[in-house]
């Protein structure tokens, strides 16, 4: 190699290095989106959401010349979806114009400045009055502003297999009046099915374990998780212990699913799409959306499901209070603070959530005027399920809630696997929450 070649080599190496560095620094602040495009992201797979959005998109694009609506699926499980969308919302480069947002994350995400307040826009929209007042609480931030438009609400209850219960001599329609009634029914069908009673009981199901299982129990006792008067988390209570004891009873007596798959992230899908259609599940404490899987457009179509499956409300512990209990959450459409086309985004939300368009699978509607429609009432059990909204409760989704919730999941899983007794798990929960949120924010009953 002569000197000239060496110099050329040296120069090209330097040139390459500079190019690499330049490439790393670029791209700040530039958005590739055009002014006439809005992007909406949703948690996939969700065929109901997708087909609803496609129809809204067609209408919106026809009504607004030159506008494109981009529907982007985010393949994700329950636990990762909030992280993925938060990371997108943190940068103007990646922030979508509309995000399908779980009402659980709405308050903290609003407090973090990720979401844009839309109170002014909503007050000018005549349709806003048609939304249930209770559901509007779910889209209100801690500062009192609205941060989203509800697209669904939900309740939880006891799905049960009529055929299985009848065979065991239990009268249907089944109306259990206490936890003991539920456990007795599960005991009666123990030998007939693979899973006498299904409930989310692991850390892998994330919020599902807190909401579909634990809060459905705790809210049926006389204790609370959060004291609204003092603004403190209740880390130790009689009701908390009773709830853990219920779970303990289920698993120690083999009334639950086999733990080898029952506490994994795949368990929920296995139960709803595989075991229930096979008639191998007696009772399932789960959300009202479960039947969505069995519709023609669902993940596991099961045309005869109505002949076998019914739903009833979860009873309170000893029948106290209303005698029944449920917990509600729901999904919303929200506009990120860093969205490029906020006004156009809101116009699209209006179109998508109008009386004529808001048809989100079998989800409970947040609009009173839709709930009165005949075709809505004709959906199986819809009227019965909508009645659950009369005694429903909402979660205290304040900033510390995710930490409290994951400690609940930890306690539930420990009891489920028999690692800890209910008493030990309660003690651990108390310690964990005191440490994680600070003792000044907790109290004992």
């Amino acid at each position, binding site marked *: 190699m002569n000197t000239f070649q060496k110099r050329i080599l*040296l120069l090209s*190496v*330097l040139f*390459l*290095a*500079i190019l*690499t*560095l330049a490439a*790393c620094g670029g791209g700040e602040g530039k958005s590739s989106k055009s002014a006439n495009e809005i992007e909406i992201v949703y948690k996939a797979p969700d065929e109901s959401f997708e087909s609803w959005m496609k129809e809204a998109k067609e209408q919106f694009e026809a009504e607004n010349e030159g506008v494109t609506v981009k529907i982007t699926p985010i393949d994700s499980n329950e*636990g*990762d979806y*909030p*992280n993925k969308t*938060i990371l997108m919302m943190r940068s103007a480069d990646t922030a979508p114009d509309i995000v399908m947002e779980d009402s659980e*994350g709405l308050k*903290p*995400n609003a*407090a*973090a*400045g*990720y979401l844009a307040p839309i109170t002014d826009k909503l007050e000018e929209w005549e349709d806003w009055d048609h939304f249930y007042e209770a559901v509007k609480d779910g889209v209100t931030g801690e500062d009192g502003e609205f941060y989203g438009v509800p697209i669904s609400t939900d309740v939880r209850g006891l799905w049960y297999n009529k055929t299985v219960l009848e065979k065991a001599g239990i009268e249907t329609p089944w109306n259990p009046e206490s936890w003991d009634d539920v456990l007795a029914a599960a005991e009666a069908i123990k030998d007939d099915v693979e899973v006498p009673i299904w409930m989310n009981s*692991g*850390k*892998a199901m*994330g919020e599902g374990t807190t909401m579909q299982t634990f809060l459905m129990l705790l809210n049926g006792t006389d204790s609370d998780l959060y004291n609204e008067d003092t603004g403190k988390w209740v880390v130790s209570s009689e009701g908390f212990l009773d709830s853990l004891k219920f779970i303990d009873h289920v698993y120690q007596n083999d009334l639950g699913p*086999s*733990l*080898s*798959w029952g*506490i*994994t*992230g795949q368990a929920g899908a296995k139960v709803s799409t595989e075991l229930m259609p096979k008639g191998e599940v007696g009772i399932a404490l789960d959300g009202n959306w479960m039947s969505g899987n069995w519709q023609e457009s669902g993940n596991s179509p099961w045309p005869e499901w109505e002949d076998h499956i019914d739903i009833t409300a979860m009873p309170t512990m000893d029948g106290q209070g209303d005698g029944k209990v449920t917990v509600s959450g729901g999904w919303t459409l929200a506009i990120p603070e860093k969205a490029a086309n906020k006004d156009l985004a809101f116009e699209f939300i209006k179109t998508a959530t109008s009386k004529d368009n808001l048809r989100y699978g079998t989800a409970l509607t947040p609009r009173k005027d839709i709930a009165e429609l005949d075709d809505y009432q004709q959906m199986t059990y819809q009227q019965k399920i909508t009645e659950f909204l009369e005694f429903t409760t909402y979660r205290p989704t304040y*900033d*510390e809630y*995710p*930490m409290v919730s*994951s400690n609940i999941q*930890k306690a539930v*899983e*420990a009891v489920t*696997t028999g*690692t*800890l007794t209910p008493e030990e798990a309660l003690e*651990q929960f108390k*310690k*964990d929450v005191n*440490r*994680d949120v600070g003792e000044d924010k907790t109290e004992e009953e």
Partner: protein
Amino acid sequence: MGKSKSLNGNIYLKTVLFGLPSIVLLLLFVLGPIIMTFYFSFTNMSLTGAAARDTQFVGFDNFIRMFQDPSFKTSVINTIVFLIASAVIGQQIVGFLVAYLMKQKARPFRRIIGILILAGWITPEIVVAFVWFAFLSDSGTLNIMLGFINIEPIAWLLKFPLVSVIFVNIWHGAAFSMLMYQAALDDIPQEVEEASKIDGANAWQRLWRITLPIIKGSAVTNMVLVTLQTLGVFTLIYALTGGGPGEKTTTLPIFMYDQAFVNYQLGYGTAISLVLLVIGISLSLLYIRFLKTD
């Protein structure tokens, strides 16, 4: 004199010039994040909630909380057990044995065995996790095989979770050590081995007195690499057990992920990652020191 000095200066300049791009990149992408991590671990940084907008310096709060957290202690113990059993002992010994036994065997034999073991290594962690999840499940291959000798199915991931993930990690990682040892063993001069044979050393003596001392340097290098790789294993455990049941397979990376992305406590998560970094650095220094003593 003068000429050689200018030549030296020229070489120095070239060294700097050639080194500069990589030094800049290292500063930017390695040292930068480490300093940021160090800083964030002293804040209440959060992924969402009010603390995400207004991140504050909280001093040693994260570290105090960490050392009071029994889950942290559990994760440290799990990490150490996982590290020693699967990397330091498992992968090293399996890797060495395979390499040693394959030495001077027929070429086709070496090829086939080598490819089989390498297959485990080149398979992505997430695929390894799914394969083993199926293999170890209630009605999986392992339980079917055990069924032939009349052993009841065992819920491996539930009854022996840590042992299972250790085993899977050995299966996945042994090929790396095997390659390292193969290269080292091939470097041993044949004359030395032949000389010891003529002097009457038996196979055991040759292994203990000749082979091992010669490859000691490679062994330590391999130890450092395997340790660092294993400390960072996340996908494999997360996909197999999610850190459970309970906290039985929660290692530090899993614990860190849970705190940062499930509880949204990024500050606390980075504090945990800092501890992980310190463990990695200390172990590497320890190994290197061990190498220098002789």
